[in-house]
């Protein structure tokens, strides 16, 4: 398997999905895992070849966060989530391209060039876990581990026609995840099917000494309980079928899913989110505030990029950060610095924290009535390269369906439930209440079978 994937990565290098591969190491690990398989002592992920986003630490391996400022930096420790996979005999095959420090939704903000969508190489793969989504889409590894702060696992999964799971905030330890916005960041799998996502989450999730914010709730065996019982009550975002901002092809896939669910005896109703207009402002105020602080450590003093033109302390900071960080990162740092400044703190940061609480209460009310919420993951299919930068407002609008789960901390999964007329993947997202991954994954598995069944018909 390792050879197969290494060959695939090599032959699709134009996609720029992997920034580094660990060929020799993967081969030698594969040999060891084979031996364990032979004597029956292998772990639960034996032989599973996994790629990791360039925001996750792996001891002795580079981690650059898609940024020039960390070029050449080698991590001295392994992220808890990754270590747990390794402990179950997964094989880490390489490091995947992403938007700089997770900021972007097209993968064009990577200092190492954009990743291309394998379904149409003139289009973006989404972001920020673009490389990770393409790697699964193009069969370059069995599964990828991405990170999701505002949709960075789900949106590229939707654009690339694969499954992307964002767990509840704090379900998976953040130790070893390069921080973008600490109170939003999550680690999630990108896979070909729900079952794989369930197994990977089950192994990565749970308490960790190294992360004081991680949940201590026991982790159910998600992969063992992938069936639903009885009829469910499902709400969908009214605007996702009514708004002109959502592409017809996307609406069609959603409509299809809704009809099918109704046929199967489930209740599906439109729901209102009066606070929806506040999702993005809340998300951007709080995440930029956090990122402005989280990226302060990249200062050219101890590690990473240091400008050769620096001649004193002030220029060391200024030049290293200006030259080392990309435009999007710099923009968000400036925004965050502004919203945290003494004169504006209450007007922005404090207010956004309050609104965040209201948005949480809003979704909690819905989950008292509905088992699941169902939306498009994105209002459109993958857009052409270069389009993002031309119209930032439209890109921001594309975030609307995904950021809700990050602002509120609930789990969400994007499923490839259809394609548009050009064959570009459309992702449909399901959300459940906080820490309801077990229910969410079972229902996602159920939805996934709709398409698998219909695909099997022509055969």
């Amino acid at each position, binding site marked *: 398997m390792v050879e197969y994937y290494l060959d695939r990565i090599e032959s699709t290098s134009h996609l720029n999905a992997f920034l580094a591969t660990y060929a020799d190491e993967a081969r030698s690990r594969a040999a060891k895992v084979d031996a364990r398989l032979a004597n029956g002592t292998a772990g639960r992920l034996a032989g599973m070849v996994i790629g990791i986003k360039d925001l*996750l*630490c792996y001891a002795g391996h580079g*981690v650059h*966060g898609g940024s020039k400022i*960390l070029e050449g*930096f080698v*991590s*001295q*420790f392994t*992220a808890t989530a990754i270590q747990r996979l390794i402990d179950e005999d997964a094989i880490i095959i390489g490091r995947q391209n992403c938007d700089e420090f997770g900021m972007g939704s097209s993968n064009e903000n990577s200092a190492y060039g954009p990743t291309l969508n394998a379904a149409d190489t003139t289009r973006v793969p989404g972001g920020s876990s673009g490389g990770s989504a393409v790697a699964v889409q193009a069969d370059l590894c069995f599964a990828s581990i991405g990170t999701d702060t505002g949709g960075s696992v789900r949106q590229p999964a939707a654009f690339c026609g694969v499954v992307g799971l964002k767990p509840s905030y704090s379900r998976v330890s*953040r*130790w*070893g*995840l*390069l*921080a973008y*916005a*600490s*109170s939003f960041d999550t680690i999630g799998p990108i896979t070909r099917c729900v079952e794989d996502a369930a197994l990977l989450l089950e192994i990565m999730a749970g308490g960790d*000494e*190294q*992360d*004081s*914010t991680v949940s201590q709730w026991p982790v159910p065996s998600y992969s063992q309980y992938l069936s639903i019982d009885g009829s469910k009550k499902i709400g969908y975002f009214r605007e996702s079928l009514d708004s002109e901002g959502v592409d017809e092809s996307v609406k069609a896939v959603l409509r299809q899913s809704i009809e099918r669910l109704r046929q199967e005896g489930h209740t599906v109703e439109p729901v209102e989110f009066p606070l929806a207009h506040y999702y993005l402002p809340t998300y951007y105020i709080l995440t930029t*505030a*956090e990122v*402005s*602080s989280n*990226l*302060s*450590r*990249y*200062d050219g*003093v*101890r*590690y990473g990029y240091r400008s050769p033109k620096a001649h004193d*302390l002030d220029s060391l*900071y200024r030049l290293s950060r200006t030259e080392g960080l990309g435009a999007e990162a710099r923009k968000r740092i400036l925004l965050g*610095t502004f919203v*945290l*400044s*003494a004169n504006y*703190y209450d007007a922005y*940061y404090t207010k956004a924290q309050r609104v965040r609480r209201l948005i949480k209460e809003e979704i909690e009310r819905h989950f008292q009535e509905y088992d699941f919420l169902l939306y498009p993951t994105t209002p459109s299919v993958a857009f052409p390269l270069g389009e993002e930068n031309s119209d930032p407002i439209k890109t921001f609008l594309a975030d609307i369906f995904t950021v809700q789960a990050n602002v509120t901390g609930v789990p969400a999964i994007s499923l490839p439930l259809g394609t548009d007329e050009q064959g570009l993947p459309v992702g449909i997202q399901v959300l459940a209440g906080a820490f309801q991954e077990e229910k969410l994954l079972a229902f996602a598995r159920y939805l996934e079978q709709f398409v698998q069944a219909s695909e099997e018909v022509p055969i």
Partner: protein
Amino acid sequence: MTDDIKAQYELVIGLEVHAQLLTESKIFASDANHFGSPPNHNISVITLGHPGTLPKLNQKAVDLAIRFGLATNSTISPRTVFDRKNYFYPDLPKGYQISQDKKPICVGGEIWVKLKDGTEKAIPLHHTHLEEDAGKSIHDDQSTDTLLDYNRAGTPLIEIVTDPAMRSAEEAGAYLTEIRKLVRYLDICDGNMEEGSLRCDANISVRKWGDPVLGTKVEIKNMNSVRFLQKAIEFEYDRQVSVLEEGGTLIQETRMFDPETGRTYGMRVKESMNDYRYFPEPDLVPILIDEEKLAAERAKMPALPRQLMQKYEGELGLSHADALLLTESKATVAYFEEAIAQAAPKTVANWLTGPVRTWMNESKKELSAFPVSPGVLAALIRLVDENKVSHSAAAQKLFPALVERPDVAPLALAEELQLIQQGNSDVLQALIDEVLAAWPDKVKEYKKGKKGLIGLFVGEVMKKSKGQADPKVTNQLVARSLDNLS
């Protein structure tokens, strides 16, 4: 400037004291918290702020901060939150310091100081918060390079902030002295100002008496002793009054104290005030402190100097001076308390403030280095109380011998040195009878009223006893024997 002019101005001082907590490891990492290691020895990926690291709170630091809060009568916040203080400096690895801003662990409270004129004053605390220390920038004289040592980065600190409540250098000095004593008592900080375990910044302003508005405050840094703090305050008092008297205006600034000249000097003027952009640290959860936790810390709380002073002066009837000396350090108190379990408190106090202190002064050592244990000292005191050894023999011969050979029991040592008094009245009586029999004329003269002759008999008895008789007892017995003679 004349004192008259200065007297028109009120001096206002607030202090910020940083105390490094005596924890085994750092506040957010497991690296050792130790002064004096080789540079960059106690550093981990967390201390260096490597990408992907997260802080992990050392509960011990919280406990020590609670202990301080309880000792100063502060309100311990049931829910306390860490904040990030954002600024760039090379010795600050993450580009922010994890500190506390809006919800510090201890709020209010006070520290009592006693001034030279005997008055006591409570210095009100604004709050005490937990934070991490930064690393150290080292400027080598030989080059323009700056070297960075991150050993200190992440050392747990409490910052103790007073209200602007002090009115003289004496008060500020007394306060800092009291803080140092208190943190040592509480075992939360070694109080070493030279090594920087205890550091003090002062906010100083002046205003005309009666003016309800505080003057422009100047922050003074780099004062690593009580004396320097007081010098800096005195200097600033004069400087600020002079500036105002000459019609100038003071600027809000940070100044450094130069111990060489005793003056303060302004640092490079910064373009604007630093905006630290505080916000709640999202990598840590709020600390919840319940009654159970407080009760547990209360149980571990040692008696405090102020309470002990009251006990020693009141209950035990010691003099103020003795009580002050005994409560100087926790070690002295522990020694004293252990000794008084086996000997009379007043006598123990006399020994500690007398011979033991002399030993400390002469040997230039702390009480912790004193070789004689409290139990052994108490045994020596009992020998005196029981008249087995005279006080002078105990102080001049037995005590120095014990210091040399602290493992030998005082009684055995006294016997060896032949210091045991002939307190045994049978032996003494025989000697007395002998002496009286040998001096019949003098006995007659005594009986006739020449009472001063008793000294002669006592002296003779002492001579016969080779100095081992207790003079007091001998005196009594000789008098009684003479009275009994017909």
